[in-house]
């Protein structure tokens, strides 16, 4: 078994970017996106480029190809690739390098493959177009690459069109496309971000092996530190267009220098001691549900939620976890089964529920941006439930809004702001205040932290925990992120294809033995340990399979 890093010898300097500055154009002005970044990459070396949204990592990745995406311009710095100055080259000279010596793997493979051509034709297009190999030879090679990337039916899958294969397969086909010309450098731009966690593992492993096999240098762009830990020899942390920290992967994971780097795994260090209660506030009882068609999205779902605790519902996309929330709120009346709230059945449809029933169950959404009317001020947003449910007005209303703002650690100066004048974390806090304003017993949190940067996530989770303690609120917490689950939950419900696989206390669910699916799901969540992927593949490969890897 090859081990990933350490024994790889760094070759000569391949890419040398110095003092790169890039401007982006928006709102009629140019403003800096990358503010003077240096980047050095050796032959055969894999660099993880990590940072949160808006850090400029994707822009920097494309700049490594000498390419400025539309709406951007490189204003300063030198880009030396294998001794050639990319910024001094004209378009035709750059085209000679692109797709032959430097290749690119995009985030959304589904959108980046041309729908009108067969996969294999697109995979060999650059290789044949640059005259590196004749067509038939390139295609034979592509089939071998498909096999090496463990695509099913590698001899024929290339004859298919992009919409005929799955997302994970497309991402692998795109890696084959990049590899076809045997480039010196591949830029991976968030290649697994759009994939489900169980698919991600397979794609990661395939990418890592093939890069290693051909000794290709790579820049791997992602926001997920655990993913980069599996792939990279060195890691570069970017923030607001500047370098925060550069270090070999193992060293950075073990002993990060900068506080910001440490904050990137802030949530992973949170952990809530589990508590429980015998008093069931809400019971979803044998629910079947579907969206109009005959295909059931939920089948015989039963979930118990004890008062004052947090129940996390985990699962991949399509597992039915958000549909469960829609059933509880009454947006999607179930075909079968019922929902008991404080031991009394709730009317199934939203329109049949009383104002007071509606008040007791509140909801917080994933995207705070779309959960608040952009034309309403913070006062309108928080004040409306107070007026509507509690009939407050005038001075009383103002005082209560002010109190709520304090609870979420903001102050009165936010009262007249519009959502567009708030940061991501502040927006989510306002949404929490809106839910809190109704004085609810149960709050459904639908992926409330997954759109936020790590350090902000931590703040939001802490706030939710504090509020729970103060007001004895119950949370139903829907998420796909196991780190968040560990941080906040008392109980866990695992869902898969519309069914509940398992429900129980957090510590019981997270420790073996697991049912097969829970095992697959839990083991697929990348960990900070750089050897995690290697060990996981070994444990899955040795037949016994379901041993407790990583624990």
């Amino acid at each position, binding site marked *: 078994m090859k081990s990933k890093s350490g024994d790889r010898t760094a070759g000569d300097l391949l890419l040398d970017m110095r003092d790169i500055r890039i401007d982006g154009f*928006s*709102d*009629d002005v140019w403003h800096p996106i990358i503010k003077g970044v240096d980047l050095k990459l050796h032959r055969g070396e894999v660099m993880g480029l990590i940072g949160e949204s*808006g850090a400029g990592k994707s822009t920097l990745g494309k700049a490594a190809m000498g390419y400025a995406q539309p709406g951007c311009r490189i204003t300063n710095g030198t880009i030396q690739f294998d001794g050639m100055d990319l910024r001094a080259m004209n378009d035709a000279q750059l085209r000679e390098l692109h797709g032959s010596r430097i290749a690119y793997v995009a985030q959304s493979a589904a959108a980046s493959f041309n729908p009108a051509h067969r996969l294999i034709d697109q995979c060999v297009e650059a290789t044949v177009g640059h005259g590196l190999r004749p067509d038939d030879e390139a295609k034979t090679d592509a089939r071998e690459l498909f096999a090496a990337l463990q695509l099913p039916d590698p001899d024929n899958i290339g004859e298919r069109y992009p919409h005929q294969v799955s997302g994970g397969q497309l991402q692998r086909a795109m890696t084959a496309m990049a590899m076809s010309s045997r480039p010196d450098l591949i830029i991976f731009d968030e290649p697994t971000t759009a994939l489900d966690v169980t698919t991600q593992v397979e794609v990661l492993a395939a990418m890592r092996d093939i890069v290693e096999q051909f000794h290709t240098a790579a820049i791997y762009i992602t926001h997920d530190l655990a993913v980069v830990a599996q792939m990279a020899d060195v890691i570069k942390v970017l923030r607001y267009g500047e370098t925060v920290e550069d270090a070999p992967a193992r060293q950075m994971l073990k002993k990060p220098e900068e*506080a910001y780097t*440490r*904050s990137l795994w*802030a949530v992973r*260090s949170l952990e809530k001691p589990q508590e429980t209660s015998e008093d069931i506030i809400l019971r979803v009882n044998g629910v079947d549900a579907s969206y109009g068609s005959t295909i059931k999205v939920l089948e015989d779902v039963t979930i118990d939620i004890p008062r004052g605790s947090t129940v996390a519902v985990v699962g991949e996309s399509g597992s039915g976890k958000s549909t469960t929330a829609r059933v509880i*709120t*009454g*947006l999607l009346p179930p075909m079968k089964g019922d929902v008991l709230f404080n031991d009394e059945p709730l009317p199934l449809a*939203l329109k049949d*529920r009383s*104002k007071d029933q*509606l008040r007791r169950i*509140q*909801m917080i*959404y994933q*995207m705070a*941006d*779309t*959960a*608040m*009317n*952009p*034309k*309403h001020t913070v006062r309108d947003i928080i004040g*409306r*439930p107070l007026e*509507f*449910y509690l009939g407050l007005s005038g001075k009383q209303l103002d005082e209560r809004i002010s109190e709520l703002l304090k609870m*979420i*650690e*903001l*102050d009165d100066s*936010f009262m007249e*702001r519009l959502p*567009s*004048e*708030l*940061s*991501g*974390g*502040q927006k989510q*806090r306002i949404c929490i205040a*809106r839910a809190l304003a*109704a004085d609810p017993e149960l709050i459904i949190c639908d992926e409330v932290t997954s759109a936020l940067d790590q*350090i*902000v996530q*931590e*703040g939001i989770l802490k*706030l939710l925990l504090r509020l729970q303690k103060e007001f004895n609120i119950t949370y139903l917490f829907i998420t796909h992120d196991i780190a968040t689950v560990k941080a906040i939950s008392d109980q866990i419900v695992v869902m898969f294809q519309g069914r509940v696989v398992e429900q129980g206390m957090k510590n019981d669910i997270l420790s073996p033995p697991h049912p097969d699916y829970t095992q697959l799901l839990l083991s697929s969540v990348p960990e900070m340990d750089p050897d995690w992927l290697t060990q996981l593949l070994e444990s899955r490969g040795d037949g016994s399979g379901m041993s407790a890897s990583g624990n």
Partner: protein
Amino acid sequence: MSTDDQTYSAAGEVASVAERRTWWDRTWRNLKKAPVTAWFGMIVISFYFILAVFAPLLAPYGESQIFDTPYAPWSSEFWFGTDQLGRDVLSRLIYGARNTIGIAVATTALSFLIGGSLGVMAAINRSWLDQGLSRFVDVLMAIPSLIFSLMLLSIFGSNVINLIIIIAVLDATRVFRLARAVSLNVVVMDYVEASRLRGESLAWVMRRDILPNILPPMVAEFGLRFCFVFLTIASLSFLGVGIQPPTADWGSMVRENAQLISFAEYDMKAAMTPLLPAGAIALLTVAVNFVVDWFLHKTSGIRDEK
């Protein structure tokens, strides 16, 4: 871990946050950045507006006051000459602004009232109402609107009221489509779901959640629809089936004076007479299009930023 607690505070969270400005301040800043074409458009529109409102004060003669010489040449007495019946062309141009623009604005407003409210309702309701209205609109839109209005006018007869109603109803189909589409974009937003979960009434959701958010595209569409309606009415009047004499109207004025064009060799000024009302129509539509183009660029630019 505790060190992180000290460095982080929610209120101080850094973000690329838009500066707070008042409405007037924002508007003025936008206006200052407006391109020349938009300024040109706004000035022209204001000029027409003044003409239309103060027509009786500005026009030298009455709307259908007849003088002795038909087709009189341009002179200090009749700046743009007289028409085939001996009416002052300048006065009729000024009154024409009032009639032509007034009727077009009334028609567009009616069309937005019908199409807009039905479109928003269809977007919220999404059941039989939406299905029924959408299919009905599909069929109406399968007939070119100029042809359809010609047919309806032949049946109901040409007068201003019929004209306004027929064009407004036919044009409402387009407004319906747009209003429904932009409302659908808003209806799927989480904040609308949040309002429904709160138990808000349909009226509240329409007024507070949907209306403010569909306003920018609808305002732009109002400009475009106005141009279309204005041109349709002018064309119908030109064809002789729109606004009827003796009402002064630019489309009919082109038709009435069209023959003068063949005298260009002898009297260039007279030949220009039919082009004046036609040019007046063109200038206004150009102006509105310029302003709408800038407005669309502005609002879509904000969307890009996000």
